[in-house]
């Protein structure tokens, strides 16, 4: 279902059930080798996956790979270099813990923020306002401009490596951030990077929990896989199998994370769960040298945006609009239809078909592999337009991926921010790591 844009090679491997024997069981604990030491010297060694960095200002546990404290915004690596130091992609699940949602828990409860490892002591320490840089008072609002403190689940940045980064943001209109992302990357550009974005379905309860669980589960499956120097076709086959396994893991994570109420918990709860069980979209992109692989369910997208040549949308939406576009309807017409966003496939207990569509793309020149939720592409859908937007954004923000992603998210919010916005990007170098074109 992918678009065959001229100049971009895309292969669809839809519904393939490829056993990939060289890809073993997912290694969730895959310590990065030769992780450059960027942490404070008193940490217990970068080799340890469990290493936690504490913010020097507020003591909040830092998200691995982040350059600024999510709680207070203080720079974690001083001085903040123009190009970020590569940071080992530690296992984020150790510091970025999923909240255990309890029955009846208010979604706005601060406890629903992803980090609950930090104790409340952080609340008594001054936080920095995300809007004006002022101090957040004990009442949770800025002392200068009155903006509310940003909850971690509402906005966070990941930058597992200098060439990969992303921003996940609540946007303006929605009261909850049901988007999620999970990223990992080799330290050196040209290696392997994994970018997963899941967009929770707003009408379903606890979709923010579901999407985060899904994204992380998929990322864990994909991280650390090395198809090796096999031929291109074999690598595509191997990645297709892994993407399928990742979607399967994400699907299971949704079900486990949300733990749909059993019939014994009351008819009303069971009915509510049955009518709108938590669910989310899924898109995972892998950069493997000059090969890009994408798997998806729903309408979160992956684009390949080469600096030169034609930009292309690698994924093809599982949505009413996507189906119509595939059938030949004009994109603008299809995407402006009222049903445009009705997705036809997703992850969640009410959808048993969680086999992702998969496609590959040749990353044969310098460019960006970009993965995003519809909160981004709603404002800039065509691949060519998106590449221009990235180009102008880079001119303003510089080329650090997390900064570019932040610029794009800010731009989407400037357009109205009607939905949650997530943008994750990997920078592909020209002629990177020719592993042999198959």
């Amino acid at each position, binding site marked *: 279902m992918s678009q065959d844009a001229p100049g971009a090679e895309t292969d669809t491997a839809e519904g393939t059930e490829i056993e990939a024997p060289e890809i073993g069981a997912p290694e969730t604990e895959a310590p990065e080798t030769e992780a450059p030491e960027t942490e404070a010297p008193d940490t217990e060694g970068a080799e340890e996956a469990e290493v936690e960095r504490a913010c020097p200002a507020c003591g909040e546990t830092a998200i691995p790979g982040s350059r600024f404290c999510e709680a207070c915004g203080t720079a974690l690596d001083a001085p903040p270099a123009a190009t970020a130091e590569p940071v080992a992609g530690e296992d984020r699940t150790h510091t970025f813990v999923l909240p255990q949602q309890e029955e009846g828990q208010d979604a706005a409860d601060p406890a629903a923020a992803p980090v609950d490892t930090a104790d409340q002591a952080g609340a008594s320490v001054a936080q920095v306002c995300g809007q004006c840089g002022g101090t957040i008072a004990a009442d949770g609002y800025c002392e200068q401009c*009155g903006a*509310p403190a940003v909850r971690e689940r509402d906005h966070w940045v990941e930058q597992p490596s200098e060439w990969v980064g992303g921003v996940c943001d609540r946007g303006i209109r929605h009261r909850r951030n049901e988007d999620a992302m999970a990223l990992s990357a080799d330290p050196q550009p040209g290696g392997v990077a994994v970018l997963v974005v899941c967009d929770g379905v707003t009408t379903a309860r606890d979709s923010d929990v579901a999407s985060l669980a899904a994204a992380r589960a998929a990322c864990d499956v994909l991280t650390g896989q090395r198809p090796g120097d096999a031929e291109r076709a074999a690598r595509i086959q191997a990645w297709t199998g892994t993407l399928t396994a990742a979607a399967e893991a994400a699907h299971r994570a949704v079900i486990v994370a949300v733990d749909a109420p059993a019939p014994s918990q009351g008819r009303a709860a069971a009915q509510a769960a049955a009518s709108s069980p938590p669910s989310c979209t899924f898109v995972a992109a892998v950069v493997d040298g000059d090969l890009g692989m994408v798997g998806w369910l729903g309408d979160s997208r992956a684009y390949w945006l080469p600096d030169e040549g034609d930009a292309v949308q690698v994924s093809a939406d599982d949505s009413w609009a996507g189906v119509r576009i595939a059938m030949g309807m004009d994109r603008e017409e299809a995407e402006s239809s009222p049903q445009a966003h009705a997705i036809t496939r997703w992850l969640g207990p009410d959808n048993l078909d969680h086999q992702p569509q998969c496609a590959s793309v040749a990353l044969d020149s310098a460019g960006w592999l970009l993965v995003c939720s519809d909160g981004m592409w709603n404002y800039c859908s065509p691949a060519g337009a998106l590449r221009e937007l990235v180009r102008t954004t880079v001119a303003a923000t510089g080329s650090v991926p997390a900064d570019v992603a932040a610029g794009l998210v800010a731009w989407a919010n400037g357009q*109205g921010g009607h939905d949650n916005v997530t943008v994750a990007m990997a920078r592909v170098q020209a002629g990177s790591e020719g592993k042999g074109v198959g």
Partner: protein
Amino acid sequence: MAEFAVEVFQNEFLADGATDVHAVVRTTVSGAGSAGRSGSGDAAEIIIIDTSGSMAGEKISAARRAAAVAVDQILDGTWFAVIGGTEVATRAFPFPNAELSIVRMEPGARAAARTAIGMMEADGGTAIGSWLRLADELFAKAPSATQRHAILLTDGKNQHETRSELASAVAAVRGSFQCDCRGVGADWDVAELRLIATDLLGSLELLREPRQLAGDFQALMQAAMNRGVADVALRVWAPQGAQVLFVKQVSPTLEDLTARRTSVNPLTGSYPTGAWKDETRDYQVAVRLPAKPVGAEQLAARVQLAVGDEVVANGLIKAMWSDDEQLTTRINPEVAHYTGQAELAQVIQEGLAAKAAGDDETATAKLGRAVQIATQSGNDEVTAKLRKVVEVDDAEGGTVRLKRDVAKLDEMDLDVSSTKTTRVRR
């Protein structure tokens, strides 16, 4: 120990493009204790009695009784003095030849003060500004007294001073002490005493008959003695770029505090509210914010109670922009009610002024509107007083006719009562 509470009533949802946030802030003090007993300083009381010639007869004897009853209420240890006022102010107690100009209450002083009060005679003119200045001088002789309160009684206009002389005297003593004002009979000027009571954080009442004085003074002094929390201020923080449109006390009476702001820091203003007993006061705060996009949330104001420099209670006024009309068009009942009560006070005062100026058409319209609001909001006291000034044809519709030959006392009574508000009916 005194306890403090702040509760905010508002609709935080703003429509797209809307900028103004209104909220009612309910502040409550409990466990206030007694004046001068909190450890933060002594209390001081001065009773100021008009002894001008017009007071002669029933009024001065009633005033003497009332002053004596008030003295009986003053707790031992409280600094006190009594002033008699004509075109000059005279210290009645401590006796003019006494060495000390203000003394602490104790049984001997109480008996001596009663004797001194009994010797007060009515003879002379009226210069209220000079009375206030003398009170200020006497309070200054008791530097340990940080909580200072006076009762001022008059029966006439301030004939021996210009309005600006009175205003400058009020300005000179503002912040030094609180002053409850009482007018007896129909010959005093409501606007004049209102100026004093408002600026000096006191109440204003009209007493129709001299015999009402003693009971009123007793209640006044008891209330003063129950004000165990001195120097309370309302603080309002508004964000950078915002504008505080107004800060009003809206219950139990209406007082616009906006102009009384002193700066705590560039974003926070402090509005003095005087000493508190166990009581609840409501304030209305309006803040204008730069409009934000739909979905945005921010704090519009922090409202705090402060005792001295210490913040003792906090309330948050919020703003959330929404495109849900069901949310944004909802009007908070407290805000609506007090907005109505403020209009009620305004139309009564404007209606009476128009009536005095012979503009019956304006007076009829304004007072008709007043009847409408007072009826709808259940303000029975004001409704009753309005009915002495106008014939009501249709209370709900606000159709009235001006009464002929209205007693001046009834008009003054209505004027004085115009700022008394009721709470929201639940």
